[in-house]
Every structure is written in C-alpha cells, then in structure tokens.
C-alpha cells in the first residue's frame, strides 16, 4: 500500500475534517469551484509521493546538512512520507552505474512530473570538468534532468547566485542554475542562503506538495513568504538601531547588552532572509542573536561586497578597490585645496589687473 499524502497528514495529527477543508481551500486557491473539491480529496488520498532528484554540483553539502536539521517537519518524514527522494548522491544507497540508472528510470516513469532540486552549481570553464559526474561534466547531468522535470528548486546561494566558488575571480566560472546556458524554461524557485534555513527548505517543499503549486515568487524568483523582508526589518535588536545604540567593538558593554551590530558590519539592512523571523534550528537563534553581524549570506554576490566587518561596501568597479567615504573625503580635500589655490591665484590676478587698470 502506498502511503499517500492523506496518510501523511493524518499522521501529523490533521483530522479528516480539516483535511477536507484544506482541500477546498486548495481548490479556491487554484481558482476552482467547490465542485472539484471531491476530486482533490480523492487525488490527495491516493496520490503517490512526488519524485525528487536532488543533484549536487560545486557545493559544500551544507544545504543538505541544513535540510536534515528541520524540526517541523522532520527530514525523516519528508523523505519517507512526503517525497520520493529517488536520487541524492549524499544519501542514496546505490552508487556508480546503479545510481546513474535511477535518473533515467525516473525520467522514463515521471517525465515532466518530478521535481529537480539542485544544490551547488556547474562550472563552465574547462568544458565543465571542474565538476565531473560519471566521467562527464555535471552540466550534462543537470541539463538532462532539467529537460524533463516539472520545476527546479535552486537550493542555497550556490544554485541561486553562485556563492563562494563564484566569488571573485570565479576561477571555474561557476554559474547559478538560472544562468546556465541551455537551461530549459522551467519554473525555478530560488531558496537562497548559505545555507538556507532548514524549516524554510522543508516548508517550500511542503507548500508545493500541499497546495500543488509553486509558491508566489518575488522579482528575483524567491518565495515571497520567506524572502520579502530584510533581516533588519524584524531584527529584535532594531530598537537599539533606531535609538543609536551600537556594539562599538566585539565583547564591549554594548555586545553584552545586545545592542545593534550595524557598526560591526551588519548586513541585515541589505539582506532578504527569514533569519530574524523564523530563526535557525527550530527557531532557536540566528547570527545576530549570537552576537555576530549578518554577513548577508542569502544575497547575490555577498562575498564580494567588502569586509564582513564593514557596513559600507567597497567598490571594485573600476579595477580598483575603493571605499566611498575614503575616496569622497580625499576628493573633497583635494577639491578644497585646489579651490583655495585657485582663489589665491584669482585674487592675485585681479589685484594685478586692478593695479593695471589704475595705471
């Protein structure tokens, strides 16, 4: 007997009544009338688990590590009862040919109906051979699996933005999934973060399974439900920011009182993530709560925005590294000096001229 979606929900303590109610909500969310509710109920009661191929490119496997930290739902329940994790090289029993065969089997059986989850990204340099799987570039595996999937989840900052291997000078030309040449036009859900929060990862999956639709995405393809606000917007240290109370140096009086970490370089004001709301590891804490500034780990290219301990970013735009305040102050100084000199010469000239006029 197949453990269906309904079984899973029942096991999680959801009553039949609320299950049906939930199905009708789903119906209206999908713009369908009440007539189709029984159909949805039936589908949910009998539907097999959706297959997921979880590919790994250049990455650090920390997104997988984060995933297994999920408390609600437990990673165990996601893997055993919600999805069918057919391919994931970090967890799967099979290896070599037997592992590779699974991708083909899934494509054959579920063409257009499986989810492709990607952790990491492919390098484009050296014909892709900075990341080899089965003797071939990872890019090939990625494009092949993407061709037949229903939707792509880009796990973490690697798949979403490029992350650390794409930091300057990006020696392998590591490329985020949506920018890989030849990537088919499938919906891509970016779940950035280095890594993303465990419960955010499982919530994205649960949402897709429960509501049978892709979560609403923002302009940059991230689920609005978790990425529409900055860490700063709901940071519990925000009152200290507004008051002008900052940690001036690590382990000072302010650090011991939980003052704002802005002056320590906090990127909370420019980072879209749910850390200050959902928090980490079962809602326990998040970087700022533990006294370290946010380094902006869910943002595109956060590695290349200057020191993590400096709130203002250096520019690298003109081949040089420069800080606006340093350059600006210096330029203002130079301009001021030049003006003084110019004024002096002007005064001299006009004095002379006046002298000449007088003659």
């Amino acid at each position, binding site marked *: *007997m197949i*453990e269906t979606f309904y079984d899973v929900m029942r096991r999680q303590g959801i009553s039949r009544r609320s299950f049906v109610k939930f199905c009708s909500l789903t119906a209206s969310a999908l713009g369908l009338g009440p007539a189709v509710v029984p159909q949805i109920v039936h589908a949910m009661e009998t539907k097999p*688990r959706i297959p997921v191929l979880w590919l790994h490119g*250049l*990455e*650090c*496997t*920390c997104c997988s*590590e*984060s995933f*297994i930290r999920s408390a609600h739902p437990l*990673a165990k329940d996601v893997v055993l009862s919600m*999805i069918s994790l*057919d391919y994931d090289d*970090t967890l*799967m*029993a*099979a*290896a070599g040919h*037997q*592992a*590779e065969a*699974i991708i083909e089997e899934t494509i054959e059986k579920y063409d257009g109906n499986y989810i492709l989850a990607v952790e990491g990204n492919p390098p484009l340099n*050296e014909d*892709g*051979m*900075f*990341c*080899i*799987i*089965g*003797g*071939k570039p990872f890019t090939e595996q990625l494009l092949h699996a993407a061709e037949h999937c229903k939707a792509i989840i880009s796990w973490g900052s690697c798949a979403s933005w490029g*992350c*650390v*291997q794409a*930091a300057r000078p990006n*020696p*392998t030309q*590591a490329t985020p999934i949506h920018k890989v040449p030849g990537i088919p036009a499938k919906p891509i859900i970016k779940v950035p973060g*280095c890594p993303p929060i*465990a419960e955010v990862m499982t919530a994205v999956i649960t949402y897709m399974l429960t509501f049978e639709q892709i979560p609403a995405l923002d302009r940059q393809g991230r689920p609005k439900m978790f990425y529409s606000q900055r860490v700063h917007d709901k940071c519990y240290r925000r009152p200290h920011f507004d008051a002008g109370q900052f940690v001036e*140096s*690590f*382990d000072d009086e302010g*650090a*011991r*009182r*939980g003052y704002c970490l802005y002056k320590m370089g906090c990127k909370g004001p420019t980072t879209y993530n749910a*850390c200050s709301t959902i928090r*980490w*590891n*079962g809602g326990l*804490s998040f970087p*700022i709560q*533990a*006294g*370290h500034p946010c380094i902006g780990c869910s943002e595109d290219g956060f590695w290349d925005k200057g*020191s*993590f301990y400096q709130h203002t970013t250096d520019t690298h735009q003109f081949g040089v590294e420069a800080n606006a305040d340093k350059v600006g102050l210096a330029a203002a100084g130079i301009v001021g000096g030049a003006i003084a000199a110019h004024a002096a010469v002007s005064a001299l000239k006009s004095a002379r001229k006046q002298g000449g006029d007088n003659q």
Partner: protein
Amino acid sequence: MSTFTTPTGFQMDNSGKRVVVDPVTRIEGHMRCEVNVDDDNIIRNAVSTGTMWRGLEVILKGRDPRDAWAFVQRICGVCTGTHALTSVRCVEDALGIQIPENANSIRNIMQLTLQVHDHLVHFYHLHALDWVNPVNALKADPKATSELQQMVAPNHPKSSPGYFRDIQNRLKKFVESGQLGPFKNGYWTNPAYLLPPEADLMAVTHYLEALDFQKEIMKIRTIFGGKDPHPNWMVGGVPCAINMNDDMAAGAPLNMVTLNQISSIIDQTRDFVKNVYIPDILAVGQFYKGWLYGGGLSGINVLAYGDIPDRANDYSPGNLMMPHGAIINGNLKEVHPVDLRNPDEIQEFVPHSWYQYPDEARGLHPWDGITEPKYELGPNTKGTRTNIQEIDEGAKYSWIKAPRWNGHAMEVGPLARYVVGYANGHEYITEQINFVLKTLDVPVSALFSTLGRTAARALEADWAGDQMRYFMDKLMANIKAGDISTANTDNWNPATWPQSVKGVGFSEAPRGALGHWIQIKDTKIDNYQCIVPTTWNGSPRDSQGGIGAFEASLMNTKVERKEEPVEILRTLHSFDPCLACSTH
C-alpha cells in the same frame, strides 16, 4: 601489465577487469574510483579520483584575513566550522593574537560538538547501509529485535516490541509503495550483508532516531554561533558575549538560560552516543569481525596534529587533548613530532594532480604553495576529455593534490588519531581500544581495518562527548571566577598589523589532521593554502609510486560481485571521504 611495489609495500598490477564506480555516493562531494579485480575477485589496483574543484585558495587572495574564516568555512558544510576554527587560529598565529580562556572553552565545545555530530551522522546516514540491509529488516521479529536491543543497549528507553513493530510497519509500507527513494537500486541481495534481520531492524530504527537526534546536538552551536550549519566565528575569540548578572543579560548571547540549554544538550548527546551509537558499533562489529579488509596505510603511516587545547593559546602537544604525532613504517614504538612550519616536513606534490608547478619533481611547503589548475588526461585514458570511461593513473588524474610528510603518504582521521594515541599510551584511548578488542574478542591487528576505522570513530565520539562536559564545566568555573571576556580586539584594526607576516593554524577535523597556512602582506591575504584530511587520505600517487590511503585500503580486498561495489563503498566510506574538503 607489469607489477610494481609501492613504497609502503603494496603489490599492484593492472590485470583483471577494470571496475568503475562513479559517482561514489554517500560521501560529501564528488569522487570516482576505479579498481582492477582479478579472476579470484581480488582488487589488484585501486585508483581514486577527486572530481571537483572550486578554487578557494585562489579566491582568498587579496581578501581581508579577518574574513577568511567565512570563506574557508564554505569549503565544507559537513565538517562545518572546522575550517573556520583552523582559519581564525591561523590568522591569530600570524598576528600574534591571544584569545581569552572562555573563547578557548567555547571553541572547544563547538569543535567537539562537530566531532560527535559528524561521526554520528556519518555512521548512520552515510556508512550504515554498507553494513545494514533495510530490506532484510522487514523479515525481523520485532519482539526478538526488542530483546536484542535490551541486551546490547539496556539504557536506551526506546526498545519495546511495539516500537519496533511500528517502525517495521512504516518501513514495510514504504517498501511496498514501490517508491524506494534513497534505498533504490541498493545491493540488497548481495551476500556481503551479514546481519541477521533483527540487527538490521535495530540499526534501521537507529538510522531514523539518529536522523531526528542529530539536529539537537547542533543546537549547541546554534546558541554559540547563531546557526548551524556554518555558525559564526571571529578572529580574536568568539562573537557570543557573556552577560550573567548585569543589566540586560537577557539580551546577551550567553546568559544563564542559554548556557543551561547547552548543558542539557551535552547530557543528551552523551547519552545517545553511549546508549545507541557505541552499542550499535559493537553489534555490527560482532557480525563483521571476520571481514577485516581495508587496513591500507593505517598500520603503516599515520599522522595526527592534535587539537583541543586545554588552556588557551598553547598549541604544544602537551596541552592538546587529542593525540599528536606521526608513525611511519608501522613502527608503533616511535611517535615522531610533527612541525607544520618546517619547510621540509609537509609538502604537496602534483605530478598526478590536475595542477601545475614550475617544477613538478619537487614538493612545495604550503607557505610557498601554488594552486594553478591544469586539466589534462593521460595517453592511456579510455574515452574523451569530457567523457572519461577509464582514467589513466599514469598521468594526472585527480583534483586532489598529493600531500606528503617527509615524503610519506599518510593516513589521517579517527583511526590514525587512535593509533597515535595508543602508541603514545594515552590512557583513555588505550582503555577504550582494549575494551572493544576484548568485547569483540579480536587481536590488536584487527584495529587496522575498515571496521577498525569505523569503530575508532565511534569511540572518539564518546570521548568527545565527555570532553564537552569537561569544557562546559570549565567555562562555568571561569565565569564564576569573574572572567566573562570572550574576545581580544587589541589587534582588530589592520593598522596595527605588521607589513608582512605568516601563520599556521591546525585542528583535528572529524576526518583527520587539518592545516591552514597564511601569508599576510599589507593587511591582505597574499597566499592561503589548506591541506585537508581528505587531501591526505584521497591523495593520488606521487612520483615514487606512493599511493594514498584510499587506494591502499582497497588493495587486496575480495569482492563478492564485481558489478556491485558494496565492499569498495564500505571501505571508502570508513574514511568518511569529503571531496569538497579535499580539493577546496
């Protein structure tokens, strides 16, 4: 093909059938393995290839040394934090920064937490399926399973027949669904699996329990470091300030509440290791103690740098609670000291690695290290540049460099540490090893095996749990004595730094000895080199024909079925390979 003998005495030849395993799964990162299996199903030649490279050492150039920890932490999310710790130690060494006692205790607790977590997750979620057959567990009698568990792990509360029946039913449903998920295409009919169904059911149950429990362990690091994976660190100490009794203590990262939480998780962690992990290892060992392949270099050349400084800022072997030293040629009577600064001791070679040096006959000490990728395949490769069928190990064949200690390929990791500790007469380690040998009724030589590696890891997790308690008590005692300092920021400002300095930081990562070397010029990183545990273990060959620990461990192993690589996986997994680490 001709036979040759490696410097460590392995007879290799290229005869027999070439078997390729790519991808090697249930590891971190990407790896390929090729072996030659002769007509008697014995492995005669083993080739391991690291198949990914990201270029962290290149990316680090020109950056702020205080940021380095965050970059290198992303070398790996499995041994998350160990690179960060090594990096802050490295920068502190270069700049002569002394950290407060509390920071040392906190860092140690974080590192020990990682040891326990990584070992536990490795055993249950990456390694267990090499020993445990979940399909076979369906045949188990839940009542007999319950009795087995009560016998081997009397202190673990979850042991009723009903409990095992529920798990078995869930497993049954899962298997009957036809959607086998991660268990799909496993080698479940292979005679290499030796456990009786009851032991299989017990282990599968603990697979699930461990999956639930591991996230609890890491909460310790979430409190200290804000999140896990990839908690936060800092040069000069730790970012989590302490405030016990002053104004606004509730807003401090560490106060009575959060420290209580940590303390309680430490207790739960120790219970789990002692009541579940260790008994499971002994149970598996009992059934597999006849399968003692996989020793490789472990009885020949092993290396450990040591870690867990008791007092802050003293990294001399006497102050390190984890073993330090090198053993060569199997001579356990002599443990050599290791000097990470000596330009002649630790060197990296690239004649068989996809990198180039101006002179590849010579090795480079990491302070002078060069990381310049060069992908090319040897003339005997079968396949093409982007479709390798069989690799040519006579040429460059891996993204892993080949580190050597005084010219020797070395094994690192829990077993290496335990061998060094045993040779050094480390009391606790000797006691643990003797206990296991006695319980399983095997000779000391059994230690040098795949099973020995797996057992050493479990023993180390147990040890680490105990030390977590030690440092937690130490932290509280120090706070009680009036010291709440967690960071030294005297040299935080780069303006205080010398123009040109170099430093080295090391640690014992879960997978073995880890070193980072830095050169700082004009406040920026001039060169940053890492030699990582899996760089040692997964090392390709050197110009003397010396083979690394992975390759050595596979030699002479008998496989049951050439087309089902379960023995290869079992032995490779016993190292807990981390390929993202190895190449970085």
